[in-house]
């Protein structure tokens, strides 16, 4: 309740003025009820998501003949039913982390470019262009990735393998266009705008007097940014990266189209490895029978928990900084 209303209401009754018309009071009560009800409904939906996923996952988990957490195969409709989240969870986290490593430095550069380098009159338009990256639907990135990127990166990945093959990450029996690195690259493009947008907001809030003081003392622009803007924005960039990570973990269609859907636990980025929880749901749902659906819902539950934790952590960091994302 805003303080202004209280003052007015108290003032009204204190002065013995005529009471407010009752229809207004009733309307007030109803309106308040409706609006708080809508808010509570959102909380109920979040709780219901967890409850229904758990309820539908339990029968399939009961029928599972292997450990859900450590098994790498996915054969819930076989006899006996055998499935586990290990390969999928590993693939999800691996592709998302690589995407984060690729996207964060570029996004921070883009954010600094817009907040501190680009002319003021251009900044809004340049920011809008970067935001357009986020407006492209994920299935379009998937199509672009599948038809253009997968064949296009093959020679580049081959070159990476030939020059850096001694590093285990870049070793491979057979360099493939459909690989973890390709999936990560598509994810990186998709999460770049959100990391850039949140970082930009934080950089814009860096104290101006400190920046001016640094410049006044003779610092170059880079030194000013390094000494005032970056220390101020560090936690904001971290939470922006975590928001991006949350987005990458849950991304489905684009990843389903460019990852080879292999059930392996391997960090060889250029091999035909790579899969993710969300991609597996999209790829195998159509053929899944009842038990298979339950198994997919169980894997979705794992994804839900992982993204929930990542997002909550990101929001808590932001909340402490009082920055709106």
């Amino acid at each position, binding site marked *: 309740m805003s303080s202004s209303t209280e003052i007015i209401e108290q003032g009204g009754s204190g002065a013995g003025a005529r009471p407010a018309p009752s229809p207004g009071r009733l*309307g007030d009560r109803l309106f308040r009820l409706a609006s708080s009800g809508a808010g509570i409904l959102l909380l109920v*939906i979040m709780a219901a998501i967890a409850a229904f996923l758990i309820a539908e996952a339990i029968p399939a988990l009961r029928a599972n003949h292997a450990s859900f957490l450590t098994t790498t195969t996915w054969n819930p409709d076989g006899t006996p039913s055998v499935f586990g989240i290990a390969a999928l969870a590993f693939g999800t986290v691996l592709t998302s982390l690589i995407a984060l490593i690729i996207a964060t430095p570029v996004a921070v550069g883009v954010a600094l470019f817009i907040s501190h380098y680009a002319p003021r009159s251009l900044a809004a338009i340049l920011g809008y262009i970067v935001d357009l990256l986020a407006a492209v639907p994920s*299935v379009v990135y998937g199509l672009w990735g599948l038809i253009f990127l997968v064949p296009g990166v093959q020679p580049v990945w081959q070159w990476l393998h030939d020059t850096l093959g001694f590093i285990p990450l870049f070793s491979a029996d057979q360099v493939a266009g459909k690989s973890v690195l390709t999936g990560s690259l598509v994810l990186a493009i998709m999460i770049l705008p959100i990391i850039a947008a949140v970082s930009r907001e934080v950089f814009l809030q860096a104290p101006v007097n400190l920046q001016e003081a640094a410049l006044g003392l003779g610092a170059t622009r880079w030194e000013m940014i390094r000494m005032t803007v970056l220390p101020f924005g560090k936690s904001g960039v971290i939470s922006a990266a975590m928001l991006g990570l949350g987005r990458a973990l849950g991304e489905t269609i684009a990843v389903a189209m460019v990852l080879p859907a292999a059930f392996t636990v391997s960090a060889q980025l250029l091999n035909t490895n790579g899969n993710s929880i969300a991609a597996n749901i*999209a790829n195998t749902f159509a053929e899944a029978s009842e038990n298979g659906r339950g198994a997919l819902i169980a894997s979705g539950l794992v994804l839900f928990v992982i993204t929930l934790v990542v997002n*909550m952590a990101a929001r808590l960091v932001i909340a402490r900084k009082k920055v709106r994302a």
Partner: protein
Amino acid sequence: MSVNSISPARRIKDKAFLVLVCLAFVIAVIPLISVLWMVIKNGAARFDMDFFSHSMRNIDAKDAGGGAYHAILGTLEMVLIATIIALPIGILTAIYLTEYGQGGRLAKTISFFVDVMTGLPSIVAGLFILSAWILVLGFGFSGFAGSLALSILMMPIVVRGTEEMIRLVPGDLREASLALGVPKWRTILKIVLPTALPGIITGVILAIARIAGETAPLLLVCFFTDSINTNPFTGPQVALPQFIFQQAGKPDPTAIDRAWTGALTLIIIVMLLNLIGRGIARWKAPARAR
């Protein structure tokens, strides 16, 4: 060395960073240009009347012709229903957060979970509707189930957008209205919302643009069809993103062409919504500080 000059090492570092930052921007824009170019170039081939007036009924992947009429119709219906569901809930929640709950524990909890809900993976929303609506309550696969999933994704975006706009409405306006004896609910409906309306419309349009491109939840709850289904409440229905996903999975060049044209159509819809939304924000919104 004079007082004004900067040592070469520092100047080079400064310039090097300038180059890096500009490079980062260029790197970020390359994929956008590449995607748009590929979609326009490859999508133009089948951007014809057939595509917008025919479905894929009785048309094999290798056949020429066929279109996305059924999918475009599905997208429009699903998005419309999702908006009808998400809009009142989202706007009422935003009103609660700004006008009633300020600083209270319930408002803080709701606000926190709205943020968390923004990060909800779309496939999880699909799994939720699949579990609750289809498996537990026993309704069939339908476009409406897709709308339900989309509305869950839309709600937090509408809440955030509306909330931000309502907070921009000057407190003086509210106080003036209340001082004239207007009840609070009428003040909100007649003063606060109309003042914030252009901004709210922008937020809603951007939210629509966001969900119109969603594929993952629809794969789980709408099933799939090649035919026209005008009724979103019964029988499988298909949306444009699903159409693209399905056609892209076929090896035939005719199917791939249809996928590109579908992508072009979807991008045009989404970009138009974005432009309209941001246009309204630019011309109509109250002057913002910055």
